[in-house]
């Protein structure tokens, strides 16, 4: 594929709002995970909650989209000059030439969960202010963002569980290559809700203490929330050396199980190989891998085998989910932004919380931050239903 430039990007998670706060936390190896006190949830687990999300209502013109997920989206769009960049590209290229591809797994379902508590005792009806289209529906995120900027190009939400906002990069790059759009607003947003907290608990996949990806004693994931966005445009010739490029995307399916990965990481390996092929790179060209690394015993084992099979055992890698939690449908976008920060600053972020990397896992797991010039990095995202996506990013110079 032809490289695309990330001409603007931003992220908000429990590490902070915007790139500076995110990078400062990574540089300090600080985790944003804390004991769960979200809503009325009574589970012994830690979560990566973004403080103050509900203190920032949406502007009046977006009132129909009110929900925690869209509030998190909109507060994140205001960071790092991202909103000005989108408005600029809409003027420069035309609002009908800017597409929107965003990932989310649960959209505004928290509103629905609360509405079900407020059902009319006699009729069972939902409260009159329940909004299906603006809050519940999976597309509401893209509809809200499209409306916020007055964009009129193609749009879709990709909702393939935890690979959602990695796969948006693949759909957007195809739309750009096919001439459907001249620029694409991509990213992902997922916010805390009862469905995922109690759901992962029901599968016994949630850790009590902050998650410890790739640790010998890892015992599950910690759920987080995040919003991450990037603006993709064809790379101009005069790009700054520090600019980040999307070099390759690769997608595959496990065809194995709904909630467990293929034990040898077959689909994960296919996705990584496809991303390398799209980027016209050999495995040795990857300097760092941001693992999917959820911290569940089976996920990390499958991913480690896949990474070893495709990239070898020596390539340094880490999971940043010990810092951010698993932000589900936002994870691919958030970790794409972390990869862009890693490239810009020459920093491979060490995986926090992990004390003793599992000796059985055949990877070079970084616990401490390592500073080194980075040319190209890979980000892995794998989801329920066996949905896999790998992305390759590089420096412009």
């Amino acid at each position, binding site marked *: 594929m032809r490289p695309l430039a990330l001409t603007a990007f931003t992220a908000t998670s429990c590490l902070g709002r915007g790139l500076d706060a995110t990078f400062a936390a990574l540089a300090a190896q600080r985790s944003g995970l804390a004991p769960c006190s979200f809503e009325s949830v009574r589970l012994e687990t830690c979560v990566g909650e973004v403080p103050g999300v509900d203190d920032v209502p949406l502007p009046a013109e977006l009132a129909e989209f009110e929900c925690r997920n869209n509030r998190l989206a909109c507060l994140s769009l205001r960071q790092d000059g991202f909103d000005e960049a989108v408005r600029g590209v809409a003027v420069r290229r035309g609002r*009908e030439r800017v597409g929107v591809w965003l990932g989310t*797994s649960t959209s505004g*379902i928290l509103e*629905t*969960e609360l509405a*079900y*508590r407020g*059902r009319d005792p006699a009729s*069972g*009806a*939902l409260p009159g202010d*329940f*909004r*299906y*289209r603006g809050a*519940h*529906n*999976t*597309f*509401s995120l893209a509809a809200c963002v499209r409306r916020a900027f007055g964009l*009129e190009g*193609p*749009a*879709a*939400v*990709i*909702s*393939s*569980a935890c690979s959602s906002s990695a*796969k948006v990069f*693949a*759909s957007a790059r*195809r*739309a750009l*290559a*096919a*001439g*459907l759009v001249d620029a694409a607003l991509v990213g992902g947003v997922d916010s805390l809700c*009862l*469905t995922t907290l*109690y*759901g992962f608990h*029901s*599968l016994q996949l949630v850790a009590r203490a902050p998650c410890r990806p790739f640790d010998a004693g890892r015992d599950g994931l910690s759920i987080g929330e995040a919003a991450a966005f990037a603006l993709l445009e064809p790379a101009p010739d005069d790009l700054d050396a520090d600019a980040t490029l999307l070099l390759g995307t690769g*997608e*595959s*399916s496990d*065809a*194995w199980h*709904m*909630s467990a990965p293929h034990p040898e990481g*077959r*689909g994960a390996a*296919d996705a990584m190989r*496809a991303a390398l092929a799209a980027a016209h790179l050999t495995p040795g060209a990857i300097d760092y891998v941001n693992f999917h690394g959820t911290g569940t015993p089976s996920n990390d084992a499958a991913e480690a085998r896949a990474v070893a099979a495709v990239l070898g055992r020596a390539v340094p890698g880490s999971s940043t989910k010990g810092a951010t939690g698993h932000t589900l449908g936002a994870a691919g976008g958030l970790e794409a932004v972390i990869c862009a920060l890693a490239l810009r600053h020459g920093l491979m972020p060490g995986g926090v919380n992990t004390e003793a990397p599992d000796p059985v896992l055949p990877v070079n797991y970084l616990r401490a931050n390592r500073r080194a010039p980075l040319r190209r990095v890979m980000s892995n995202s794998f*989801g*329920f*239903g*066996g*949905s896999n996506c790998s992305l390759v990013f590089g420096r412009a110079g």
Partner: protein
Amino acid sequence: MSAPLGAWVEGLGLLGPGLPDWPTAERVLAGETSYEPGPTVIPPLECLPPAERRRTGRVVRLALTVGLEAVRRAGADAAALPAVFSSSGGDGENCHEICQVLAGADRQISPTRFHNSVHNAASGYWGIATGSSAACNALCAHDASFAAGLIECLAQLRVDETPVLLIAYDADYPEPMRSARPIPAAFGVALLLAPAAGPGSLARLTARLGAAPAETLSDPRLEALRSAVPAARSLPLLRRVARAEGGSVLIDYLEHRCLELTVSPCH
């Protein structure tokens, strides 16, 4: 758009109220028989292992049934096909059950309910059923989900130059969600699309984005279906294919946008 996006339709699958398969729908849309709405009868899935079969709900069976029909009619191999699943609401029954449990005192939801709650559940079961490790996508664009799925397929065809299967499906919610999102019936449609003509190609499509209102159907019962179920927004296109009638057709897409398709029948 540079050169218009296009595809050849190689096979179709359909399941809807009173429409048990594509040949029945084809006769109705061609005007050979009148449309008699009835229940959407979704058959059991023989293609999944028994343990997985027990875990699937109506919506997953709907999606897989139409997908398999399109592949079968095209004489293609599902195990080698990338697929795009597009649905406005996914599995509404499953979502209702989860929300109901979470609103009660004991919030212990079933693990199967939870893994079936993901929007890509149908594509996950599709992979298990067909053994396909090709890329699958799972999209949502509310009422525009059919056109959004078709556009994703057309971009994939242009860039990857391999066939791709589109599966668009929606089903009715139970109350109380049904009042908020009144989809009256389950409806699914699948189109196997190819980048080049084959001996069994049904029609060629070319696409461009427009801004005109979508085409409606003259039969009030078919129009009611079209306007109420996002996946049934495909019906004006399917009508052209069923009638082997060339020309341009406008399909509902996003606010300010429609999808203009030019249909050229192959025979």
